[in-house]
């Protein structure tokens, strides 16, 4: 059974949901009734300042941009968190000092070091597996003979175990 007042609550929610749906639906319906609709190939084409579009608008970008975006995001968030942390807990001239404040600052320092450690692990991973290189190194090369060594990574950048 519903708790006391539950029925009223459900009624209210139902009326609210229905009203929200009707309002959105009514606006869409009015637009559907009065708007002119005249599609043509030119109108549905991509807009390139009046020029004939070259190729479709749906182009697949290189998937490696995804990794670049992730790396950027990591460092972006890092800066966004580091900056207020440094300003607030930095101390500096003119800021008062007390044992409580000192403890708070020490806790904040260790918190930030932990956060930075997590980021660094990701960074080392990227570095180790070549995500920072645009052109992946697939094989090693013996410096003395110039011969190609065993393959160390496949085309996707995953390391290949030594044979």
């Amino acid at each position: 059974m519903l708790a006391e007042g539950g029925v009223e609550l459900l009624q209210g929610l139902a009326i609210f949901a229905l009203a929200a749906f009707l309002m959105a639906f009514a606006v869409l319906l009015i637009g559907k009734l009065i708007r002119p609709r005249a599609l043509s190939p030119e109108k549905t084409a991509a807009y390139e300042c009046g020029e004939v579009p070259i190729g479709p608008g749906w182009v697949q970008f290189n998937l490696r941009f995804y990794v670049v975006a992730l790396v950027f995001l990591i460092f972006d968030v890092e800066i966004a968190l580091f900056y207020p942390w440094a300003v607030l807990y930095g101390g500096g001239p003119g800021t008062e000092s007390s044992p409580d404040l000192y403890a708070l600052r020490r806790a904040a320092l260790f918190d930030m070091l932990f956060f930075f450690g997590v980021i660094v692990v990701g960074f080392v991973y990227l570095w180790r597996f070549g995500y920072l290189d645009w052109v992946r190194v697939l094989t090693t090369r013996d410096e003395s003979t110039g011969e190609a060594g065993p393959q160390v990574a496949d085309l996707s950048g995953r390391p290949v175990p030594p044979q």
Partner: protein
Amino acid sequence: MGWLRNRFEENFAITTIDWALNWARSNSVWPLTFGLACCAIEMMAAGASRFDLDRFGAGAFRATPRQADLMIVAGTVTFKMAARIRRLWEQMPEPKYVLAMGACTVGGGPYFKYGYHVVKGVDLIVPVDVYVPGCPPRPEALLEGLMRLQEKIRAETIAKRAEPA
């Protein structure tokens, strides 16, 4: 065109809808950011604070034809530009209007006789609603043209047209 269009005789409901639609459309005629030659300078002046096209609801110059209602063809239309103008006009959503600004777009202007490269009037490419003469027209003339266009929009109706006798 819309479902309501040409479907009902002229009656109170239809004329009320007409009034509301025309009120909304005529007071927010968004022009396309589209200047071809010196007339565009006057168009920019008309959009700026001294003449203030925004008083008539037409100050929001859109950078894409998808959002534009009015194409102010401001300047000399060369043959090279003609195909682009046509394509931009095709890409504008209905209802769309064209305002030919200046002597060149009205009918070739000073290039009429010897201009081997100029289209003799933009109405050869797109249907023109309002012609604003001048070389170039002053911003006041453009405002006048815009008000004429608004009058034209307010006279539109979605009622069923009388059968031609």
